[in-house]
């Protein structure tokens, strides 16, 4: 049975790693806070069932990565509905502002959720492709092709915008 102390310890040890991923993967402060919270709630739910087959850090990484991808995919699915609400002036247009509040991350917004995560894991977190494939439960070939495509898109964006 997991105690509050267990969860607090897990939180203290892993919050920085989780925040590092979250703060680069989504761009708005509110989104980051929501996602960070969602990840730790999922960790809390799953901690009692953690069997220790992999390292705890790997397990937490996997939850963080998959929760983040699902979070962005879910947002994208409801984008049309938000647009509709804005058109009918049910919600303010500002709520839809999708530009990053950290300008350096803007080019990453051009990548789809999988590409963005693969690129961040490979280039920023320095994870090996095999590890990424395992974390995201994707075939190695898919990871390679997504990373290649993500690099191409990002290089174009960086060249287009010059000094970011």
């Amino acid at each position: 049975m997991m105690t509050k102390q267990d969860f607090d310890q897990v939180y203290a040890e892993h919050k920085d790693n989780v925040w590092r991923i979250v703060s680069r993967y989504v761009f708005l402060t509110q989104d980051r806070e929501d996602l960070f919270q969602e990840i730790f709630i999922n960790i809390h739910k799953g901690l009692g069932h953690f069997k220790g087959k992999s390292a705890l850090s790997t397990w937490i990484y996997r939850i963080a990565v998959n929760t983040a991808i699902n979070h962005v995919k879910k947002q994208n699915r409801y984008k049309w509905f938000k647009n509709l609400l804005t058109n009918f002036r049910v919600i303010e247009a500002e709520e839809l502002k999708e530009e990053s509040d950290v300008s350096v991350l803007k080019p990453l917004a051009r990548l789809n959720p999988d590409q963005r995560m693969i690129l961040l894991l490979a280039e920023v977190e320095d994870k090996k492709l095999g590890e990424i494939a395992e974390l995201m439960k994707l075939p190695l070939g898919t990871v390679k092709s997504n990373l290649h495509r993500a690099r191409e898109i990002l290089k174009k964006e960086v060249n287009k915008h010059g000094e970011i």
Partner: protein
Amino acid sequence: MGKYEAYIEKIKKLDVKFNEHKILAKIEAKTKAHRPVFQLAFAGVLLTALIFSFVYFNMRPFVFDSQSTLSDYLFQQEESGDNAVLSYVFTE
């Protein structure tokens, strides 16, 4: 170093501050909150029983016997005997 590599370095060095107290308070509130499963189940059963008994006792002719609703009504009115228009209809 190319532009792309310089860009990746910038992302690596990026340090976005977060309001830990605010987030932690939200996480604690959500992880502590437990759903009152038994109370909800009991309330559900009670509500269903109330709805069923209301339907059974008040709407039985409409729900269980829809064949002669109108004639039932007319004959009921006739039995009461104090409706001039209906008594005319039936005596004629």
